[in-house]
């Protein structure tokens, strides 16, 4: 083995070790979360702490799903997140297409205003939005949250989608117009299929944004049966005098599931350039 080859091999081993160390560091809390949710309670607070549980139990999941209001929180969160994602992406794609392809007065200004709306800190709009939502009688309702989540998700979605639509070659839409497609046919049959990876990515990010939303859910919702996960779980955990770590970790695992599932479903679209090869030069 020559010196150069040894050096290269050494470099590769170093790199691999570093990568695995980073992965370990990042995933440790997640692994800890899963393990804790499966440990018997007695083991969780023991000292010294055990990494691998001596026996596995699903009792915390059972407690979480059947002895607490977690199920309702979960359903509420999914409803709010999915609805606002759907609305944001639907209007976002139409708005992005309009901003990119139509020429109208102050087009650039309008695009920047959208970004500006997104950059506003959520807390600045808290009171005005509360007044608006209350005045239409939706405070305390999940629909109120859908409205406020969409308020933040739509500019975000619009801004992301605008970049995806702008990257599409306009010749293809011109060809479709000549082939006989109207504006809506172009949008639904030509633009959306090409922008699908971007749309899915936007949907995932929008979903996570709404799913994680804490402040508005905390302020707008008082009744337990309308609460979403972020403030709801906090209340769940704080209800008991001492914190039930196993229950909390089980909740964290279940909360993570939809996100994991979402990534698993759309990951083959991430980074896959559907448009590659259609236009050269």
């Amino acid at each position, binding site marked *: 083995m020559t010196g150069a080859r040894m050096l290269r091999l050494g470099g590769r081993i170093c790199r691999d070790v570093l990568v695995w160390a980073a992965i370990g560091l990042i995933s440790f809390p997640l692994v800890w979360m899963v393990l804790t949710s499966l440990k018997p309670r007695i083991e969780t607070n023991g000292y010294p702490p055990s990494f691998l549980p001596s026996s596995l139990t699903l009792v915390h999941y059972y407690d979480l799903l059947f002895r607490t209001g977690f199920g309702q929180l979960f359903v509420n969160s999914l409803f709010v997140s999915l609805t606002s994602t759907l609305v944001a992406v639907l209007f976002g794609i139409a708005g992005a297409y309009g901003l990119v392809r139509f020429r109208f007065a102050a087009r650039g200004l309008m695009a920047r205003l959208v970004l500006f709306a997104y950059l506003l800190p959520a807390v600045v709009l808290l009171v005005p939005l509360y007044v608006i939502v209350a005045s239409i009688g939706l405070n305390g309702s999940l629909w109120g949250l859908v409205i406020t989540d969409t308020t933040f998700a739509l500019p975000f979605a619009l801004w992301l989608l605008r970049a995806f639509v702008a990257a599409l*070659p306009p*010749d*293809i839409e*011109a*060809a*479709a*117009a*000549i*082939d*006989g*497609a*109207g504006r809506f*046919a172009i949008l639904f049959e*030509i633009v959306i*299929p*090409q922008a*699908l990876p971007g749309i899915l990515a936007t949907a995932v990010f929008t979903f996570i944004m709404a799913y994680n939303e804490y402040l508005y859910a905390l302020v707008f919702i008082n009744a337990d049966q309308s609460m979403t996960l972020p403030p709801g779980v906090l209340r769940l955990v704080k209800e008991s005098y001492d914190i039930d770590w196993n229950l909390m970790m089980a909740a964290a695992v279940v909360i993570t599931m939809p996100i994991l599932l979402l990534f698993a479903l759309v990951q083959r679209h991430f980074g896959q350039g*559907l*448009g*590659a*090869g*259609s*236009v*050269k*030069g």
Partner: protein
Amino acid sequence: MAAISLDHIRKSYGAHVIVDNLCIDVQAGEFLTLLGPSGCGKSTILRMIAGLDSPSAGGILFDGRRMNDVLPADRNIAMVFQSYALYPHMTVRQNLEYPLRKRRVPAQQRAAMVDNVAGILQIGPLLDRRSSQLSGGQQQRVALGRAMIRSPDVFLFDEPLSNLDATLRAHMRAEIIQLHQRLGKTMVYVTHDQIEAMTMSTRIAVLEGGKLLQLGPPAEVYARPATRFVASFVGTPRMNFLPGALVPGGFRADGLALEIAVAHAADAVRVTAGVRPQDLLLAKDGLPARVTLVERTGQETLVTTSAGAQTLVLRLDESCKLRIGDEIAIGVRPGKLHLFDEASGERLGNDDCHP
């Protein structure tokens, strides 16, 4: 088949004029090429014919019917783009079917039409592939097929061959010529490649800066270029130009011992003389020059020489034995001098060439 009239077309964005007061009549069944350098407005003209852009002023007429406010879909045209513009998320078959679907052609008929076009263009084996999996030449074929499939009145081509390699380009050029002969449809073809323009067209419209410089059959554009720009743009290798003046004896080149008798001799008019490389020859008592470059293509030899401050390129046959540094004397073939007004660039005289 349709005749197209561009009637005093103007296209501008604010103060930026792209096409200025353009009039062209394209006859039914004609193959008209819009030829010019990039930025001359040729693609904009094509997009206005297609209805993708609308003119700022003037009318676009198909068979005398004003089309300005007619949607692209309703003009019964087909367009082939430089980028091919195939639908990347569809298979080749779906690409070909798309214009038929939009016109509600029944499925059975659609299938027959796809098979027919696929047969003509020999893309049958590709029908179920995604268009993004095809090579450039195959994509170009599919784009042609998508244009052909619904028998449009007018075919528009926007530099369709410029992304292909040289061999494929020559091949596709021949295919488009055959397509025109077989279908006999009106075709408007945009290119900056004068070989394409010369070989394919019924007539060529040469454009520069949004203005029409010359409109005529290829042979006429080549033999009697209307302006100095046309003369320099059409023909490879490029025409030689010599600044000079018309004097009573004929044309006298600046700073060179070259005087050529011409019919239109006048007094002291500043002109630019143009002569094509194949119209220069070796002559005993010609203009002395020194060879600076010899390029042999196998069938001919291009000899670059310098005479005074001027550079002249000669096109000689393959038996030429000249080498760099040789001293030669150059003559002009009688009657092969083109004269252009120095200020305006306009051609002087109506003859093919000046005797």
